[in-house]
């Protein structure tokens, strides 16, 4: 059974607010690069970059972090093994940059930990900030998001499904009772 908790309008607003907060927090957009975690995190990253371009007229580099053994129907944060994240497809340097890491759902924190390792393997960024569309709680690592679209306190029996227009044909966040 699925229950919609964020509709398309609310998702647009959340991305808009995150974009303004990124500008506030970084005092502008100089040296900014955005890295999205495959698959939906990357589309959200592109949308934030498009918004920044609309406001400031500057193209911000957007890269995609690959997550290994990724399957659409399995939670990123599998209980059995930690995910592996690689930055093989990122074609720009993060050296000295302010990195905004973007993902759709923040849950145990294990994907983000792996993503942080992958970024740091690429070079030494000036800073890394985390932007998340949905924070559902249940962290297993000391990780928190700097920019949160919506906090959705959830039960571990539930699944959070983020859909994006680009691949799912709609923008929404649903809670699915397993």
């Amino acid at each position, binding site marked *: 059974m699925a229950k919609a908790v964020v509709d398309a*309008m609310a998702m*647009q607003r959340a991305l808009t*607010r995150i*974009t*303004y907060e990124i500008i*506030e927090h970084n005092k502008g957009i100089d040296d900014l690069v955005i890295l999205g975690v495959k698959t939906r995190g990357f589309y959200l990253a592109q949308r934030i970059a498009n918004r920044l371009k*609309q406001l400031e007229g500057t193209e911000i580099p957007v890269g995609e972090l690959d997550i290994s053994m990724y399957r659409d129907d399995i939670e990123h944060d599998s209980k059995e093994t930690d995910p592996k994240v690689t930055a093989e497809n990122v074609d720009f340097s993060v050296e000295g940059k302010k990195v905004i890491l973007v993902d759709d759902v923040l849950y145990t924190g294990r994907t983000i930990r792996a993503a942080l390792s992958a970024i740091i393997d690429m070079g030494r960024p000036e800073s890394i900030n985390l932007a998340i569309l949905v924070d559902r709680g249940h962290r297993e690592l000391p990780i928190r998001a700097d920019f*949160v679209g919506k906090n959705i306190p959830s039960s571990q029996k539930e699944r959070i499904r983020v859909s994006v227009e680009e691949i799912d044909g709609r923008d929404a966040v649903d809670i699915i009772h397993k």
Partner: protein
Amino acid sequence: MTERYLILEDGSAFKGEGFGSGATTTGQVVFNTSMTGYQQIVTNQIYHNQIIVFSQPTIGSTGITHDSYESILPTAKGMVVRDLASISKNRHRRLSLDEFLKQNNIPGISGIDTRYLIRKLRQTGTIKGSIVDVADDHAFDQLNATVLTNQQVAQVSTPKPYPNPNTGRNVVVVDFGLKNGILRQLSKRNCNVTVLPWSATAEEISNLDPDGVILSTGPGSPFDMPNSVLEMIQDIQSKMPLFAIGLGHELFALANNAEVTEMASEHHGANHPIRRIITNQVIFAAEGQGYAIDPKSVDRDQLIITHIDLINGTVQGLRHRDYPAFSVQFFPDAAPGPDDAIDIFDEFVEILDGNRE
């Protein structure tokens, strides 16, 4: 119906029929191009000291309804229409526009060639006018001698704080001539609201420990407000989320060093296309403004332009670069008008929720 006249400062006179109050009235003559919502327009306090000409030819056909008051005591100076609707009551309340205006001592005049009059007002800009019984030299002398107050905000703002109780988010609204639509939208979003007089200081606001502050719409010129209001804004924006509307937006711009100029002809209507820059969407919203912010004067290191009017290029929305403080010139609560921009209130409460968590 009695014969009455609308006379203008430039010496012209228009013969029509009186309705509403039979009093003689003087105000700035402005026109509104909304197709609907005459009750919300005439009860909007931005029209304090103004006589409103309606471009929509038939006015009054839906009477007066409980849902459409934008203030308790309207302070517009008059209504000018082409036709006053003969069927003018509705099933919710047996009160016609004519009776409503009589109760509130607001004169109206019908049978005016409003198309000609509005074309003329577009040329002359906003000028003084009167609704009078006889258009003789004496009436023109009286009109020319009348000095309209510039203390409009003080006259329409609440003299004392009052609550609009709810439980949930705690919001302070600073009343520069509050439009009820703002409170209606906050009520729908479970905000406990305290409305403060226009002269509220940053300390008085902070003492209420709000999650966020709204600066309301209001009548008149932002330049007639004392410097203390700008100081309040500069202080509050650095402390808590701030959302400014209409006159509030003009004051927010002044507080952040943008330039505000008086428009040649005031802009009142429910159908203005506005570009929301961040998503590059076009929305339609109701405007009611006599002043505008020059985009060239906006310091890009301090403010971001968020909305632009597609007809005249004026700044319709701003956001501070360093704080969650933003403003819109138009009426996001619609009432009347399209509700394309109503989700700005959702944006505001989502900022409050983000700050609380």
